């Protein structure tokens, strides 16, 4: 199966200087993994394990200290590649004084969609995330859950082939979590490749085909769906066991 994403020996170290003292901290260390075409790939780890750093390195928000990221075999920074990526941050922030329609028009144009397509897709995705009733309200009036739905709408607007979802169920109510899960399943059925970071084991258990466990910036285990499917709670056991073996502070 072809790889959509290839991460090769990816390392990120943060260097900070203060009053002549330089401190170096580790973000991620020597990560190597790939995400196959059409799969849902999960990144699982505790807070601070390097999940968001990994996603930011893939998306070009951070620059690697060493190693490389390739998407569809090419550099992750190229415009042609970026057009095919949809990203949902952990907590999507938007311009408070703008409406969802205005924000989606901006993101659609930046994704190089033509104006007519932006208009039609805006209506479609707002309906899909059940936010069409609030299309022209300023977003300062929105709850966290509503913002998360708009976040999902902007990630899907340009019909990307590869979706990067950072903690997509954070802030959603139980109904929202269920709808989000159904949406991920549906998108994957339509052939979308999904990279999904979470510390919600139950969500990964239901959605992912493979899961990479991160601990202290390192990839400590890569597991296949067959290892936990039909064994409820098995993924949690594997996760705890892996962390204990890796010496993570639990």
């Amino acid at each position, binding site marked *: 199966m072809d790889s959509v994403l290839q991460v090769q020996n990816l390392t990120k170290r943060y260097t900070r200087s203060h009053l002549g003292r330089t401190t170096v901290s580790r973000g991620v260390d020597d990560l190597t993994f790939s995400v196959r075409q059409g799969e849902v790939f999960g990144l699982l780890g505790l807070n601070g394990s390097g999940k968001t750093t990994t996603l*930011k390195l893939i*998306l*070009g*928000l*951070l*620059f690697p200290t060493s190693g490389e990221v390739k998407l569809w075999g090419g550099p992750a920074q190229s*415009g*042609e590649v*970026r*057009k095919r*990526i949809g*990203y949902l*941050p952990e*907590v*999507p*922030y*938007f*311009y408070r*004084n*703008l409406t969802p329609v*205005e924000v989606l*028009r*901006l*993101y659609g*144009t*930046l*994704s*190089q969609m033509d104006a007519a397509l932006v208009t039609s897709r805006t209506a479609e995705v707002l309906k899909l995330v059940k936010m069409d009733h609030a299309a022209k309200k*300023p977003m300062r009036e929105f709850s966290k859950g509503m913002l998360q739905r708009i976040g999902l709408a*902007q990630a899907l607007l340009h019909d990307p082939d590869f979706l990067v979802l950072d903690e997509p169920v954070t802030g959603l109510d139980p109904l929202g979590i269920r709808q989000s899960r159904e949406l991920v399943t549906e998108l994957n059925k339509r052939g979308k490749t999904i990279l999904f970071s979470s510390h919600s084991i139950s969500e990964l258990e239901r959605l992912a085909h493979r899961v990479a466990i991160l601990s202290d910036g390192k990839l400590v285990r890569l597991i296949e769906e067959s290892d936990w499917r039909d064994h409820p709670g098995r993924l949690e056991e594997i996760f705890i066991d892996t962390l204990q073996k890796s010496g993570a502070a639990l």
Partner: protein
Amino acid sequence: MNRLRSIIAIARTTVIEQIRNRLYLVILFFGGLVLVATALLGALAPGHRTRVIFDLGLVTLELFGLATAIFGAVSLVLQETESKTIYLILTRPVNRSTYILGRFVGLVVAVGCTMLAMAAFHLGVLVWDMEYFREFTEGWSFATVYPMLLLMSMGKMLITAAIALFFSLFATSQVSALVFTASFWIAGHFGPELKFLIEKGSAGGPAATIAKTVASVLPNFQYFNFRDTFQLPGFSGWEFMGTAAIYCMAFTGFFLVLSTLWFSRKEF
């Protein structure tokens, strides 16, 4: 073509954001209020009523234009970085230079519109009493001078906004970016005096070289001083305007290039 569309989209969003920003509306409101106050002050100077409204109005217009430009430039990128709204822009096929240009163009359009609105209001106050106004403009062309003065104020605003944008990229707080920009703006009005002091005060050596370099980096707003020069003998309007336009473009361009270089290395 895609790049231009992206710049326009970011600029349009910036204009909408600015216009709906409460701080922006407060500044605009106070600007209008001060313009009304100039009319009241004018009433205290019999015989010079229109002169007072003209002078104070132009100063108000420039200062409030600059205030919106500085606050806008400083808060745009800094707030966007803090609020993380920038993630959703930079993860799309958008160059970082496109983002900086779009933001700058949007800010300049928003502030330019504010200044034009305030100028319209100022003109209304000026021509309120037509008799005084006719007397005041006798011997010079108001219709040429006023737009020129407005253009020169906008030129200064452009440079100051570019400087503010640059400082906002590496400042850790809005206050420090504001202080840096305000220092440059003040120093820009004392360019010739600064050069004179450097030449007089230093006998040479590394200190003098450093001082001269610093002075040359600071903006020189004397290039925009149309008001004190247009009535001088031998004054050439085209030459003045050409020099001011070239200086404005070069200085603004320089700071935009610096901003782009810095921003392209910035991590989020």
